């Protein structure tokens, strides 16, 4: 009984500590498109413009000469570089007009969801956008990882995983009217998963 009570107190203390450490701010989209969010990351300048994020992601964020370059959703190769974005999936020139891709992307069952975006603040001043509560509760995930000294997993606005030490995160900012369009898995991927083809 005592242990159970102590556990409850400990959980409360942790919760209070988390609440102090983290602030969730909700603001309009305009607030995060201003100069404040222009960051210097290494050699380049990274400007978060959510309206143009999908369109610019190939040219401005990834360096195609490194292993950061995006893969074609179909052939999973980085070269030739995927030039086409269709329903949020990237395709190279060789794969775009193939039967599987066309059949999959033209399927009326593909659905689009508007997904909220949050900004993660790190202790070194770096900020980056993530999908908020994508697949899991973001805050719960972070709290658990922080308690256990683990890394925490997020997804960027195009659905790629970001893994980072939970202790490095100082704040989340969740704007009110900022979202990306996330499409359901392509029908082709779905069939592959089901059939193991």
């Amino acid at each position: 009984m005592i242990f159970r009570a102590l556990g409850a107190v400990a959980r409360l203390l942790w919760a209070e500590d988390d609440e102090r450490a983290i602030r969730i701010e909700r603001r309009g989209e305009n607030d995060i498109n201003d100069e404040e969010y222009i960051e210097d990351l290494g050699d380049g300048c990274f400007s978060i413009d959510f309206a143009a994020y999908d369109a610019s992601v190939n040219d401005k964020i990834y360096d195609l000469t490194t292993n950061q370059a995006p893969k074609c959703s179909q052939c999973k190769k980085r070269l030739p570089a995927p030039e086409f974005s269709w329903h949020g999936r990237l395709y190279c020139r060789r794969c775009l007009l193939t039967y599987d891709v066309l059949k999959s992307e033209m399927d009326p069952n593909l659905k689009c969801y508007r997904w909220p975006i949050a900004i993660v603040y790190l202790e070194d001043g770096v900020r980056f956008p993530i999908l908020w509560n994508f697949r899991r509760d973001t805050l719960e995930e972070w709290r658990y990882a922080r308690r256990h000294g683990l890394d925490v997993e997020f997804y960027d606005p195009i659905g790629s995983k970001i893994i980072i030490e939970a202790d490095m995160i100082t704040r989340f900012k969740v704007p009110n009217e900022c979202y990306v369009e996330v499409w359901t898995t392509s029908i082709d991927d779905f069939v592959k998963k089901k059939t193991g083809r």
Partner: protein
Amino acid sequence: MMKRAEMEAHLKSGGRLGFFCDDAFCEAWLAEDGVHLAILPKDGEEMEFVGDLDKLYEMQIDLELSLFPTADRRQ
């Protein structure tokens, strides 16, 4: 870029829409079971798919296509 309502009106009036995607000529038309899309690559076999107007409209936006009214080139 063609508006969705314009595409719908043109297809419903029996017209066809053509466009070039990469180096393939593509053509869309309305049939009883939905919007048909034929892909005629420069090299390779013709492919035909059945989708709906929304998917054709999204394709136009995502792949930055220029659709235009066309005569049926396959006749």
